Every structure is written in structure tokens, then in C-alpha cells.
């Protein structure tokens, strides 16, 4: 490098090294390239067989031959026609997009990957080009000039690749002048590829588990019970109070259902401990169920029919146990579904009543039809009525910000309840910048069944806009805790933080509640729910002793 007197010109460097990888020509000609780290592995046949889904076979996404059935094209197009007849959203969104580009830079995957096909409009155009070719006169006649293209295996793979690079977060839909929701289109593409057995292993495994065993993780009844009892051991160690939750108990007033991730994974278990402590302190007449032991629904990332099949258990179990209403735990897509789909999938059984808090007497009128109340709504009401004794200073070592989950934000409108609870159990709360929260919140990058490990690069890129906003409050206010109301967030955000913003941890809202909750007859707290010393409290006790 000493002879640097005559360096090559920039142009020369770029000539010799092929770094400029702008896709040349129209997108319609750009072939899909499966890049490792960007996609999930294909599903194993056994999972498809377990739930009677079509085309079970050994295959791999990186294979040239996906072993589609002979008449795959027919199946795909017939499936598409059927769905165009059944979903107004689908037909309308195929028809009315004007390609104004307002959505283009709203997608976290586009922002993070820079791949033009991750612009929501283009993601939809991938399918719209097929729609034009086979379902519109103009497209049939003018073909390419009308923006239509043939459905080939290549195109099919492209549809698959980009349908699994969308987390169905609906952010684009907020900015679209016609409310076109890419999630609706992605849901349809995923249904179509599932007609041909092309799901991912990461989604299909939990689906099969959930169908037979009641939850995604495949926890059997005794395991669920022992897991929760272990949490109770920890709670006893922390508070000196022994909690004895019940399972599958008939005659309980309330059925509690939460995502199974919180029974098993850190930091989700701490959130579950928060529920246990809260319900115990209230003396709530509730029960867990080992049969309806999953609040989440990976079926939703497969097909709407599968989502419906998996959610049969919720109301069926509520009916069998004869409860009066249902409380649901903190979860994102679960609440999109419980809020917008559950009571459409299944008729709420007669024994359910409009939820009424046994503690405050508040009637949850807004849940009068579906009879399902969000645990954070329930807790916010308790706090509002002064029914909880709270010591927020136990969370003083935490500087908290709140990540709005996509599903509860744009599919429910759930913004104030969690903030109200957090502000009552924590003294240090800081909002992230305005255009990255509430209805404009950025996805964790791992939603809709994309939180596998083989697509880690995709997740890290997709999560960059969220992480970037966290970094801002981390640097500005010293934020060290990212609270959220979603089990997938609790699984995915710690990883995202470790990569982009080390020093920020992740928790559910009820972990913070559990820490602050002053329980009747508890011993002096020296540990938080993570069994770590509670700063400021440990020392004090030693001095007193």
C-alpha cells in the first residue's frame, strides 16, 4: 500500500468489483434469489399430515424442485378465484391500487433491506400481476403491457419468498389513501401456497402441536402444570407467598388464556408470574386450562380456516368449564384475532356473560359480544379504582419505554391501557419518537411466524427501524427496559436489542406489575421477578438486620 501514488479511480474499482447490484430492468423480469438468512425452512411432511393439509412431502426451500403436484397451477388459480369471490378486501385491493407510492417507505422490511420488492405496493403487485393475467380482460388481452404475467414455478417461489418477508403488521395500510392492507394480500398468498403444502417448518410445527396438544410448544397437561408450579416456587422465594393456581376447574368464574410462550421462555415467564401474583392477590375465581392452553394462533399465518380450527378450543373450553367470561394474556396477534376474528369464527357459548370485574364491578361493555377481556384492560380498571397496592419504586432501577405491538395497535386500537398501567407501576417512563409508536409503530421484524433462527438476518434488518428508535431513547434518557404486550416481542426483541442496542432488556407489562404489586402478607422484597437483586432494596434490608 506504500505505492499509493496512483490509486485506481472510483469508477475503475466499481468496474472490477461487481458491487453495484441495482436490479436492471423492470421488476417483472428480476428473478427471485433465495438468500440464506432471509427465509425460513420448508415444513416437514409430518406436520401437514397431522392436521390433514395437502401435499405433505420431504422438500427444502433451497431445492430447485419444490415437488408441487402436477396440477399445481390449476389449484393455485382455482384457490385464487375462490378467495376473490369470498373476500371483498382481496378483490378490492387487487382492483383499486393506483400505485401512488405512499406506502413504499412505510414498511420496516423495505427500510431495513432496501429490496424494492419489499415495498408494500410491489409485494402486492407480485400477486396483482397474476390477478390481471388470469382474472381481468385487459390483462388477458394485453398481457405484459397491462402489467400481467404468467404464473410459473419461478413466480410461485417469488410469491412465497415475499409472503414470508411480510409480518402482516398493517403499517402500510395506515398510510394508504384507500386503506389497502398488505396483510390481507399476504394472508391470501399464504393461503394459496398452503394449498400446495408450502408452509414453513417454524409455523407448521406450532400449528400441529397446538391442534393436538392445545398449545404451540406442545406442552402436555402435566408439563403445563409443573411449569406453572415452578413459577409459583419462584414467587414464593421472592414474596414468601404460596400460590395455588387451579387447572381445568369447572365452575370457576373466569377462564384465563395466554400464549404458551409465556409458560416456557424467558422473559415471558416473568410476565406469567406477574399474572399469577395479581390474580392471587385479588383472590380471583379463575382457572387455567391445559386444553385451551394457547392464546396465540399460528394457524392465522397458515390459513384462516386453520386459525378457526385452532381457536375452537377457547369457547369450547369456556363452555365446558361453565365460566362467565374469559381474560386473555398479553399477546399481539392473539389480540388482533380475539378482537377482530374470534367471535366470527365461533359463536360465544350461552353460559358466557358480559364481562364484569368481580373486584371493581366495572362492566366491560366493549366486550359484550365476544366476552373476552384483555388482561391489561382488566388491570387498568383495577388501578383506576384503587384496588391495587403498588410500590412503583421497586421498578426505579428501570427506565422504561413501551413498544406498541403491530397487531394490538392497528388491529385493535390498544394504546392507552398499557401506558396507564406502566405509568402506575413505574416512575420512569419515556416514549419513543412520535412517528415510531402507536398506530405508526414499527414491527419487531419477527411477527407472523417469522421468528425462526435461520432467517436471523431478515429479522435483524426488519427490526432495525424499531431498534433505532429504542437506541434514541436509550442514549437520550438511559432507557434500559423495553416493555411490550406481546409474546413474540418478548421472544424476538431481546435478540434484536442484543444486536442493535445492547443494554436494553425486554419485559411484559405484567412483569412490571408483579414487581410493583404489594401483596398481602408478603415478606420484604429483595429480588425482582427475575430473581435478581432489587437495587435499593437489598442493601436496606441487610442494614436493618
Amino acid at each position: 500500500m506504500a505505492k499509493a501514488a496512483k490509486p485506481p479511480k472510483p469508477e475503475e474499482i466499481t468496474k472490477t468489483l461487481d458491487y453495484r447490484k441495482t436490479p436492471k430492468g423492470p421488476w417483472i423480469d428480476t428473478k427471485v434469489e433465495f438468500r440464506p438468512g432471509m427465509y425460513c425452512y420448508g415444513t416437514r411432511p409430518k406436520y401437514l399430515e397431522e392436521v390433514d393439509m395437502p401435499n405433505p412431502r420431504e422438500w427444502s426451500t433451497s431445492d430447485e424442485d419444490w415437488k408441487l403436484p402436477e396440477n399445481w397451477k390449476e389449484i393455485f388459480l382455482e384457490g385464487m378465484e375462490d378467495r376473490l369471490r369470498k373476500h371483498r378486501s382481496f378483490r378490492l385491493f387487487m382492483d383499486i391500487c393506483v400505485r401512488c407510492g405512499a406506502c413504499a417507505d412505510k414498511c420496516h422490511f423495505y427500510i431495513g433491506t432496501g429490496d424494492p420488492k419489499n415495498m408494500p405496493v410491489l409485494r402486492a403487485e407480485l400477486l396483482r400481476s397474476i390477478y390481471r393475467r388470469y382474472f381481468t380482460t385487459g390483462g388477458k388481452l394485453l398481457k405484459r403491457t397491462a402489467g400481467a404475467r404468467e404464473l410459473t414455478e419461478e413466480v410461485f417461489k417469488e410469491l412465497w419468498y415475499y409472503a414470508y418477508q411480510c409480518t402482516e403488521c398493517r403499517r402500510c395500510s395506515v398510510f394508504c389513501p384507500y386503506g389497502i392492507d398488505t396483510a390481507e394480500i399476504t394472508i391470501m398468498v399464504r393461503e394459496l401456497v398452503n394449498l400446495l403444502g408450502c408452509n414453513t417448518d417454524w409455523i407448521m410445527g406450532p400449528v400441529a402441536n397446538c391442534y393436538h396438544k392445545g398449545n404451540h410448544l406442545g406442552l402436555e397437561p402435566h408439563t403445563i402444570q409443573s411449569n406453572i408450579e415452578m413459577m409459583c416456587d419462584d414467587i414464593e422465594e421472592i414474596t414468601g407467598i404460596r400460590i395455588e393456581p387451579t387447572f381445568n376447574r369447572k365452575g370457576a368464574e373466569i377462564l384465563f388464556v395466554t400464549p404458551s410462550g409465556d409458560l416456557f421462555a424467558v422473559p415471558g415467564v416473568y410476565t406469567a408470574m406477574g399474572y399469577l401474583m395479581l390474580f392471587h392477590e385479588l383472590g380471583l375465581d379463575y382457572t387455567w386450562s391445559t386444553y385451551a392452553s394457547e392464546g396465540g394462533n399460528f394457524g392465522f399465518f397458515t390459513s384462516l380456516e386453520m386459525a378457526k380450527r385452532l381457536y375452537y378450543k377457547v369457547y369450547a373450553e369456556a363452555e365446558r368449564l361453565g365460566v362467565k367470561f374469559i381474560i386473555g394474556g398479553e399477546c399481539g396477534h392473539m389480540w388482533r384475532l380475539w378482537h377482530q376474528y374470534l367471535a366470527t369464527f365461533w359463536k360465544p357459548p350461552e353460559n358466557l356473560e358480559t364481562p364484569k370485574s368481580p373486584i371493581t364491578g366495572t362492566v366491560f361493555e366493549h366486550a359484550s359480544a365476544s366476552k373476552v377481556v384483555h388482561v391489561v384492560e382488566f388491570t387498568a380498571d383495577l388501578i383506576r379504582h384503587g384496588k391495587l397496592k403498588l410500590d412503583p419504586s421497586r421498578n426505579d432501577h428501570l427506565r422504561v419505554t413501551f413498544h406498541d405491538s403491530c397487531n394490538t395497535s392497528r388491529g385493535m386500537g390498544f394504546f392507552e391501557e398499557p401506558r396507564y398501567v406502566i405509568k402506575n407501576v413505574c416512575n420512569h417512563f419515556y416514549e419513543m419518537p412520535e412517528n415510531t409508536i402507536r398506530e405508526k409503530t414499527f414491527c419487531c421484524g419477527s411477527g407472523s411466524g417469522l421468528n425462526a433462527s435461520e432467517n436471523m438476518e431478515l429479522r435483524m434488518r426488519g427490526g432495525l427501524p424499531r431498534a433505532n428508535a429504542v437506541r434514541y431513547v436509550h442514549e437520550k434518557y438511559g432507557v434500559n427496559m423495553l416493555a411490550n404486550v406481546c409474546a413474540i416481542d418478548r421472544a424476538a426483541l431481546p435478540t434484536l436489542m442484543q444486536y442493535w442496542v445492547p443494554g436494553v432488556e425486554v419485559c411484559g407489562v405484567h412483569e412490571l406489575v408483579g414487581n410493583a404489586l404489594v401483596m398481602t402478607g408478603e415478606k420484604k422484597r429483595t429480588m425482582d421477578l427475575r430473581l435478581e437483586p432489587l437495587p435499593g432494596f437489598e442493601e436496606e434490608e441487610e442494614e436493618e438486620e
Partner: protein
Amino acid sequence: MGVWFSFWVVVGLILVALIGAGLLNLSVIFGVVFPYLALVVFLVGLIYRVVQWGKTPVPFHIPTTCGQQKSLSWIKYSKLESPATGWEVFLRMFLEVVAFRSLFRNLRTEMGPGFRPVYGSSKWLWLGGIAFHYSFLIVFLRHLRFFTQPPSKLVSIIDSFDGFLQIGHPHLQLTGVVLFFAALYLFLRRLYIPQVRYISLPADYFPLLLIMGIAGSGILMRYFIKTDITKVKELTMGLATFHPKVPEGIGVIFYVHIFLVSVLFAYFPFSKLVHLGGVFLSPTRNLANNSRMKRHINPWDYPVKVHTYEEYEEEFREKMKMAGIPVEKDIEEEETEEKEQEEKE
């Protein structure tokens, strides 16, 4: 490239009108037949599209909520962004249609380097869209004076407002000019913003060029190549009263204008322009966020295969019993077992 294709198609259409009405003297075809045909295609086509959408069910309740839901009584909810009643949905839709509210969301203070506020440029799309659609609407309404006798009050009022600058003779009407330039802006942004160029199809360039052609020919006709307006009105009134007649001596520029308009009308139902009707039907906007208060019924709901509790218990009964979890069939089973044992004995 899509843009050239669209350009030549529009040029071709203009030539067709010039040759047809100018050289071949087919003024009846261009002045009467095509307009009627176009109107029929437009009405039938648009109604067909809207009916087709309308008939397509909305199986699930999927509003995009952009504000606080109605939940606990002491939490203020966002009536516009998360409407709970029909009236609130109406307001949300009204603002969406009238003010392009969602597009307006782009209009936000951005933060620049060092987190200093910077005003973003994204408001241009909203502004361009508003200018385009409103000037189009006013131009459209203004033209009603060709189809009513005497012209309605409303039209005259619009006319006088539109020409308030009182420049030139006849008075310059602003909206025609605004329409042309707004369309030009929307066209140019398709060419110059790489992302938008990448997603644009001929179907995006064509209507803009066509509308520029319409506005351009209209402006030419009004201010430069003067056309006998009384004769034009004779023709248009004939169309409106279904007694069509074609007066001699209307300039060919008029036929270019009316032909392009006819093409636009006929093209409308087959194109993305149907967003005019579609926007009202969008399920992410026109549904109330009340799905937990009011059960939404899926009209094509069908029975699905499920895994019942009985099947579940069958598989795990022993494990459940060992863990002390209550089971349904426990007692029955013990009884049958006892009976079997008694029988054996």
C-alpha cells in the same frame, strides 16, 4: 418503456380524432355515437364493478385502527381513527374521501440530523392529489352548463368563482390550468422518483397523459383556437335531451376534446380509476371498531374439523389424573372397569 407506450397511445387517439372528425368528416360518430357509447360503457361498467364488490362478502371485521379503541369509560377514544358507531365511521370515511386523510398522514414534521425538526417533502403527494381531484371535480361540474338549459345556479356560481382573477377574455378559469399542471406533476413524479418509476405501469401513465390531453385540448379550445360555443352547446344539449344533432362548423379541436373524454369514460371501469367507487367499500376503513361489542357474521362460514376436548382427554387422561388435573370420564371409566371385573369374577 411503459411511458412511451402510453404517450403514443394518447397521440394515436388524438390523431384518430383529427383524421376522423377533421378529414373524414365523421362528426356524427365522434360527436354523438362515441359519447353515448362511452357513457353507456362507463355507467354499466362502473355499476358492474361496484355491484361486484358489493356482492363480495366481508367475512371478517378488519378495520385498520389508527387511534385509541373504545374500551374503559374513562379512557378517551378516538372517534375518527377508531370509530365505534356508524356515525363515526361516516365521519372517518368523509374525511378520507374529502380530505385524503390517510395520505395527509405523510405530512409530518421530520427530524433531521441531530434530531432537529425538518419539514418533510412528503406533503407534495397529498397536495398534488388534492389539487388534481378537486380541480377535476370543479371542471366536471362547470361542464354541466353545457347540458342544462338554462345553466343551473350552482354551475354559474362555480363559473364565476373559477374565473375570479378576471384575466383575459374569456376569463381565465383557474381549475383547468390547475388540473393540467397537477396531472403533469403526478406524471413527472412517476418519472423522476425512482421508487415510483419502478412500480409504475402503462396503466399509470396512460390516464394521466389522457387527462393532460383533455385539459390541454380544453384550454386550447377556450383561449386559443376559438370554437363556436353556441354550436357546441347545441350539440351537447342535443345529447342531453336525447335529440342529438350535429351543427356544422364546430372546430375539429372540439372533436379531439370530446373524443378523449369519451375514451376516458370508456376506459374508466376497466382501470385503476375505479378507486373512485372502491374507496367507499374498503373494509379497513368503512367498518366500526366494535367487533367485541357486536358479533360480526361470516356469511360463508362453514364447519371445520376440530380437535375436541374429548379427543384431548382421551390422549392425556392418565397424565392428567396423575397430575391431579380433573378429568371428565374418570368416574365412568372406573365404573365400567369395575363392571368388567365383576363379570370376570
